[in-house]
């Protein structure tokens, strides 16, 4: 095993070869904000919250899907990055109908928490107020497209942890949305195993358990990582 030594926010860190910038930051106790990243499934670099600056590289790089190279000097908290992160959050809040006060995930929402932590206190863009439907056809779970940020964590969870392949993305650009099977009602899905892992993976109130109160909407995406780890290490009786 070889080691890569890098500098993150003035801290020297040694990490295993093949580690991502995000792993390296974690090892150094530095938090890089993420939305689409989730331990246990592969990264897509889609949300752009985790972009970092690397000295000598003109492009900003996504921490989740960038493998560190020897000697890199990385900055994760520059004013420019903080500004971009706030704009990203503003854009998300303006895109769909993220009304925290009337959301099932209020208080348990990664988007909401992120907005607080990044200091996004207001949205300067005009709200789009799109009209998205809800899918309440499944007996246990519901999908509210108005709250969705298209991180596709549910899709990756469904394909790569549960292996059911029920969830998918359809449509382009602002019309992109999460679908069930071939764009059917969730309740009619022949492939859904009712496992509920997608609900655990959802960072917002887009996927929820029907009948649960806002106070009960706690989630544990780390549990999904535990499943993957247990499988890999064959820890069947834990």
């Amino acid at each position, binding site marked *: 095993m070889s080691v890569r030594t890098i500098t993150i926010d003035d801290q020297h860190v040694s990490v295993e070869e093949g580690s991502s910038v995000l792993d390296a930051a974690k090892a150094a106790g530095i938090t890089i904000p993420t939305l689409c990243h989730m331990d246990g499934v592969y990264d897509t670099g889609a949300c752009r919250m985790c972009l970092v600056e690397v000295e000598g590289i003109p492009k900003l790089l996504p921490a989740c899907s960038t*493998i560190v190279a020897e000697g890199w000097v990385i900055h994760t908290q520059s004013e420019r990055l903080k500004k971009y992160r706030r704009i990203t959050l503003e854009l998300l809040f303006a895109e769909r109908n993220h009304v925290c006060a009337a959301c099932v995930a209020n208080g348990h929402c990664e988007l909401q928490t992120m907005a607080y932590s990044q200091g996004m206190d207001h949205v300067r863009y005009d709200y789009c107020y799109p009209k998205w439907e809800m899918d309440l056809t499944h007996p246990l779970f519901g999908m509210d497209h108005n709250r969705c940020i298209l991180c596709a964590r549910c899709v990756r969870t469904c394909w790569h942890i549960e292996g059911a392949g029920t969830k998918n993305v359809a449509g382009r*650009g*602002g019309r992109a949305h999460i679908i069930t099977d071939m764009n059917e009602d969730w309740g009619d899905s022949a492939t859904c195993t009712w496992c509920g892992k997608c609900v655990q993976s959802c960072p917002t109130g887009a996927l929820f358990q029907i009948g649960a109160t806002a106070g009960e909407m706690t989630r544990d995406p780390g549990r999904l990582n535990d499943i993957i780890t247990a499988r890999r290490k064959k820890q069947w009786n834990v």
Partner: protein
Amino acid sequence: MTLNELKEIKEAELAARKKTTIRCCMAAGCTSQGSGDLLKNLKAAVKEAGAEDQIEVRGVGCMRLCCQGPLAQADPEGPLYEKLEPSDAKAIVTAALDGSIAKLQTGDPTQPFFAKQFSVVLGNSGEIDPERIESYIAADGYMALRHALREMQPAEVVQEMMTSGLRGRGGGGYPTGLKWQTVSKARGDKKYIVCNADEGDPGAFMDRTVLESDPHAILEGMTLAAYAVGAEQGYIYVRAEYPLAIERLQKAIKQAKKAGLLGAQIMECPFNFSIDLRIGAGAFVCGEETALMASIEGKRGVPRPRPPFPAESGLWGCPTLINNVESFANVAPIIRNGAKWFADIGTEKSKGTKVFALAGKITNTGIVEVPMGTPLRQIVEEMGGGAPDGGTVKAVQTGGPSGGCIPADHLDTPVDYESLSALGSIMGSGGMIVMDETTNMVDVARFFMEFCRDESCGKCIPCRTGTVQMHHLLTKIIEKKATARDLELLEELCDMVKHTSLCGLGMTAPNPVLSTLRFFRNEYEELLQENPYAAPPVTTA
């Protein structure tokens, strides 16, 4: 196919030439206006006149002056007939027989539009029959492949490409030879060659022209690339909106397979290579290489972060060489004539020629090929004939939705990768849209932003929602509902989307706004309103 067989085909084809050849344009522009019927009528008229041993009627690829189509020309030294009807066939044949000029609209084949062109990529366009492999072989087709397979090591082919200085014609301008070298050195049991024929910029039709006019040149270029890097499978990713190009590629692949120029043991050498077509389903983003590969693999066509670059990990995780149509079209001429010949064309950093599609407010709409370093003014004013109806050229938009607008007072800029990016535009794939003084530049910016908004794949947030907000702000400005604050927001958003988007589409989406702001800021400011909520100015008594 042996060398002798190649030569025999060429000689037979040349021996069958008649005293007069009537070439009739059969590319998409002219066929859409009835040149198919014209070709049929020309053949019938020759038969009727009993002149089959004197006149050959040949359907050819693009004859370039698309705005005057359908086009036909009688060789040698016949005039260029323009705006033809199928019923004009008889008059053309009669005139060709007695050496006169038919009373039809004619154009001067020596006008600057033609005279200033320099053909490398389009050498066969408008000359050979794109549907017959013999016609391509008669123009020394597949000689480069034969030469490479028999006389050159793969590494020598790569070296030749490096020496030529060819840079990617899809717009990026990455040195083609360097890419080939990376793929040839990459480790992998399997390697792939991909031709990106998903040309999608509004107003661009260069790649379509090449595919429709000279499909075998692409096959030969790809096969040479396969030999150089050690690949056995190639894909041409062509958009479904180009049915004629697809049809001709299919024909060409079939002919090449039959002739032993594709498939196993090509030219009786221990080298196998197959090419399959993949038809795009209409997403602009599939022209982005990682999205294109996802689409070929049968997945949703969305980009992924690079690195890893396709040269290391492309199709199904294997090293993959992706080049654009025009890049591949340059390969056979480079191998045939030598890298030095190619490197002598163009400028120091941009070698060779570039094909441009002239469109918009310009007299001569069509296809031009010029050496790199040609001033924009020569292309737009001399060759293109400037704005029609006595108008004046206000700006030239290059590079499609990723490019920018170059104002008329910068028209003396030479066309090369560096000069265009210094002006905030890009070379792009070769679309050139000319605007006259009636065009409002904010409208232009909004048009391209609408395009990017509709074509964003929706994967990354800056591009998906940033383009929506930028389009909204531009609309507000045009509808005179915006204040200086909105313009500030727009500029900030442009900067953010440019630097944070996942792929090239998002990163370049703000370019049309940024470049029009740079040169035509007054047109934005004229539309701004006073902020009704602004605090009144402080006055001292």
